[in-house]
């Protein structure tokens, strides 16, 4: 099946559910749960997963507070105001090169009046044109690209990503600049926030490298050091830091190579399967045909189906719902009932678990003798 045919199949699969554009953040997050085919297919089909979750009866709460959003916008404007005064100041601190005046190109909406995949492809073309001009060293060409659309090869198919970071060109190198509103307090950033930011930057850098290569330019022109600009301490004074993305890039490249190919995904997508907004049961049946890999970390990974998948895992009595260390503790015995049968009887399902079963029954005996039990 050709890529176009597969794309058509994905569109058909999406049915009448609304579409949503993948961006760097969602692609980076999806790579955090790379073994979940369900997520891959749904995102490849641009399904609005939060709508889907709602239809399935397990809506996920909104992710971002209006206050946080507003602060983010405010900070970004503050950094860019007065001709990018702060932006340039911070870039000067991080990049040991002369930083010329900035000329922005806003690629957030295309000239054509189309939507969906067509729009993304068009914007990708416009981004490429802007990159071409930028790399030609034309002194009047825009040297900062805002809201670019780049593409990435994932498992043999092309994914279009909308970038919220900037691409800044100076000294013959293209730098990814992320403006984030989480603070740097006493030199520390919450690692929970820093990790996704680094990953997003890596995804952007990788897609820029691929795009440049396709355009006939050297991918080395994209710097692997991204610049992060965020507020310092308790107000909105900007500060900056360099993010070394090399390790992320190495990991990403391997992951993308190993990501399920189009043919694998296609094999998992039954013919004629569609998601229908109206019929919840049918929707659930369709979703259940796509293999998933639920673990509690999904709740933090930004996947809108997390509560739905969790509910199924809990209903089925899977030990993974209790945490991956719990599942790991019992070897292949991954259902709650089977674990308890083993612990109560001391009988192992196979010779591999004999020691474990003996340990469990003994431990249970000690636990009860010591006064253990329900609260």
């Amino acid at each position, binding site marked *: 099946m050709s890529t176009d045919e597969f794309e058509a199949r994905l569109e058909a699969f999406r049915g009448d559910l609304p579409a949503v554009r993948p961006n760097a953040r969602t692609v980076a997050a999806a790579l955090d749960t790379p073994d979940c085919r369900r997520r891959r297919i749904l995102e490849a089909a641009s399904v609005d997963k939060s709508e889907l979750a709602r239809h399935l009866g397990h809506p996920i709460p909104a992710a971002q507070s209006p206050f946080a959003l507003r602060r983010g916008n405010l900070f970004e404007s503050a950094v860019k105001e007065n001709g990018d005064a702060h932006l340039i100041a911070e870039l000067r601190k991080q990049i040991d090169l002369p930083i010329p005046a900035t000329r922005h190109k806003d690629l957030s909406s295309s000239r054509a009046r189309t939507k969906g995949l067509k729009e993304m492809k068009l914007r990708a073309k416009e981004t490429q044109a802007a990159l071409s001009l930028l790399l030609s060293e034309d002194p009047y060409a825009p040297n900062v690209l805002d809201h670019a659309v780049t593409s990435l090869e994932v498992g043999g198919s092309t994914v279009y990503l909308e970038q919220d970071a900037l691409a800044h060109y100076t000294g013959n190198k293209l730098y990814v600049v992320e403006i984030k509103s989480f603070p740097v307090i006493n030199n520390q950033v919450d690692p929970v926030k820093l990790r996704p930011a680094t990953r997003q930057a890596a995804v952007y850098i990788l897609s820029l490298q691929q795009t440049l290569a396709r355009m006939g330019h050297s991918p080395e022109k994209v710097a692997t050091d991204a610049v992060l600009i965020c507020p310092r301490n308790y107000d909105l004074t900007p500060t900056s830091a360099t993010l070394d993305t090399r390790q992320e890039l190495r990991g990403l490249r391997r992951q993308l190579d190993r990501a399920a190919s189009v043919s694998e995904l296609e094999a998992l997508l039954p013919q004629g399967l569609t998601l229908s907004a109206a019929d919840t049961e049918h929707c659930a049946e369709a979703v259940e045909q796509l293999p998933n890999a639920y673990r509690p970390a999904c709740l933090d990974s930004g996947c809108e189906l997390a509560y739905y998948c969790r509910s199924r895992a809990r209903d089925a009595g899977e030990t993974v719902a*209790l945490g991956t260390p719990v599942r790991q*503790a019992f070897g292949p015995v991954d259902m709650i009932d089977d674990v308890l049968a083993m612990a109560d009887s001391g009988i192992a399902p196979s010779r591999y678990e004999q020691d474990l079963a003996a340990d469990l029954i*003994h431990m249970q005996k000690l636990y009860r003798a010591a006064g253990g039990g329900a609260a």
Partner: protein
Amino acid sequence: MSGALLTALLRVRAAQEGRAQRAARFRHLHIADEPLVVAAYNLAGDPASPLGIVYGTDRERPCFRVAPEPRNRDIRFRLLNTFFSDFVAYVDALPEGDPPQVIAGNQATLDYLFRIGDSVRFLPVGEGVEPETVLGGRHLVRLVERRQRPGAATAVALTRDLAAHWITGQSALEDAALGPLLAWIDPPEGQTGRGAAESAEHTGLPVGPLPKPEWDEKLARLITKFNEARDGATDPKLVSRLGTPVKRMVRDALMESWDDVWRGLDLLVDLPEAPHAQERWAEDSEDWAAWRKYIHVPEARLARKTSARAAVWQLGDREQAQRRVEAQKIVDDPLKFVAAVADGLALSGLVVSADPDRKIVPPGRKNKVSRPLFTLSLERPSPLPLHTEVFWLDRLACQGRIVEMTMSPPRVTIEIAKGTRRTRGEDPTFPRLGREARFTTLDPGQDWRIKLPDADEVWTHSHMVPETQAVADQDSDFVPQLPDGDDA
């Protein structure tokens, strides 16, 4: 880390039974007579813009303070000044020798309180900043920081401490939310842990410091109205009058948090206190007393950053504290002991032969030394291999080594090498024939404190010198401009 296999099994059991399972028979944390319970909500996105704080030592008399527009400096500092004034009053009113104890619903709230304290502790007094605010900020930071020392109880994060005493039928990740955690430990009549927890997740608000985005949507509309109405004015009476809708909304939410935190505290208080918890509290008291003395000296200087010397000291002190707490927990609590056995860190057996007076000449030495020998009959072959160093739980100073083992019948022979001398005029005690004896590999650690060299003698670390200062950091050119509400 310790108790992994038992925890895994208990989670499975709890999931099936619909109720949390006990992980402890005793409470391994001292709870003060009148601790300060605190719950707070922050404006999402800002690091330290408190919407409201509810606090107090009496469940029936909560103190509630709100800042209907916490991004405005005047309004925010009115809240902070009042809170810190009450906080310092609470600290000062404590009897001599009692450290403060702050009880929060979760670690995120403690981290938030740390940030609040940190955001004010280096500010110059005046211009709307009261001296108690700066002092209170320093105290608060100190109390929360102390928490990083294993066994310290000056700041309690209920989710963490409840989860150390009960194992739920959900994942550890999900245990970080107080509502669902309480639902598993104490589900309402007729409900399972899972049902009650999912209900708490769905309908309830988090205990803090962040509410839910959809709640924020509603609040945002009220705050916009408030800002429009006051039109830039910050007169306290006006703010109080116009801010009533915001105040009501925030208070209703925080009162739920208040109730949940007290409910969680009740569960902990119901458990009998472990003997060593009091000993660890005494260490907290000592540390607090030293801090009190220091902070009131006019020349007291505080470090913004941790110096190399402080870091080395902290690491050593905390590792020592951790070893001790781990060992003390299994001495105090039979369930913790079972967890240690399950992890292969402890064993117990019947003493079938005892020779407390044995003396031998060890290899390479000339004189006879005391080396008592005990053989234990076990229920299963020892998980601890030959030559493992072990400590006797009845008296941790008594230390020995496994010198012999048999598989069937399962037995170990332990030779004691330390703790054989008379101390404080008393003969040493040893395991008794015919009785049960318990040993652990967890080394409680010696109680010496190695004196650290003077910082200027340590040339290898001399390039890491932090600044100490008592005033705000003013090295940036950009004057902080805090946006005043919605003005876009």
